[in-house]
């Protein structure tokens, strides 16, 4: 019961600001509306007992990416871009596509019989995640770190004002 309430609240906290994000005419507002969305997602993770992912989610998304977005918005003209038209001409088509896709996927989801395993909430601890990273998924881990490095260097090279 309480779980359901929390789930509903968190879903609203997630989805309503998300709508604001994609519809607001003020780019800064939509960027700031990302924060509650991410926090709501974090809450969902916590409901799913994935605390570590939740922490990382806040740290990376709310703490880093949002700040980065705001930063770029303010460094570019978007910082004052409240007057500019923010949507292009394919709004109706896009809306239709999104709605239909959502509808169909939901249809598929609800028609699919999920064999859901043990409902007993498992206790994940960070150690197991780390172990998984360094044993089963070590390759993925390494590749990801490599990608991270590459993107770091690339971002610096691209954004750097060449004299």
């Amino acid at each position, binding site marked *: 019961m309480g779980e*359901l309430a929390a789930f509903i609240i968190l*879903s609203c906290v997630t*989805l309503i600001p*998300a*709508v604001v*994000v*994609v519809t607001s005419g003020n*780019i800064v507002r939509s*960027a700031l509306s*990302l924060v509650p*969305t991410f926090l709501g*997602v974090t809450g*969902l993770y916590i409901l*799913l007992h*994935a605390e*570590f*992912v939740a922490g*990382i*989610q806040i740290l*990376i*998304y709310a703490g*880093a*990416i949002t700040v*980065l*977005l705001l930063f*770029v918005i303010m*460094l570019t*003209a*978007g910082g004052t*871009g409240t007057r500019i*038209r*923010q*949507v*292009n001409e394919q709004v109706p088509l*896009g809306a239709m*596509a*999104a709605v239909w*896709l*959502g509808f169909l996927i939901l249809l598929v*989801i*609800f028609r699919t019989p999920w*064999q*859901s*395993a043990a*409902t007993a909430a*498992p206790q994940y601890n960070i150690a197991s*995640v780390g172990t*998984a990273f360094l044993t089963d*998924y070590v390759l993925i881990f390494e590749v*990801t770190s490599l*990608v*991270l490095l590459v*993107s*770091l260097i*690339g*971002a*610096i090279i*691209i*954004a750097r*004002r060449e004299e």
Partner: protein
Amino acid sequence: MHVGLTHYLAVSTMLFCIGLYGVLTRRNAVAILMGIELMLNASNINLVAFNRYVAPGAVGGQTFALVIITLAACEAAVGLALVMAAYRSLETIHVDEINVMKW
């Protein structure tokens, strides 16, 4: 009734579609990035939810969620760097005005 897998899937679907809508309709490149972030979050919810309900024992889902978060960070960094570069050279970050390559 208690919360099941489908609930999470539904939420993630909606989030995904919202993000898709944003990606399809926004002119501002940064806004498009936001939409992409939303979609990635939706996928993360899926992963973690599947991990929780389908394979409670393993942590593969969370692992992949973490990997995706990392990649999202990379994507944001590179994308925003590109946006900055484009803005510096074209004075705009609206993707429908960045059309130098069309003619």
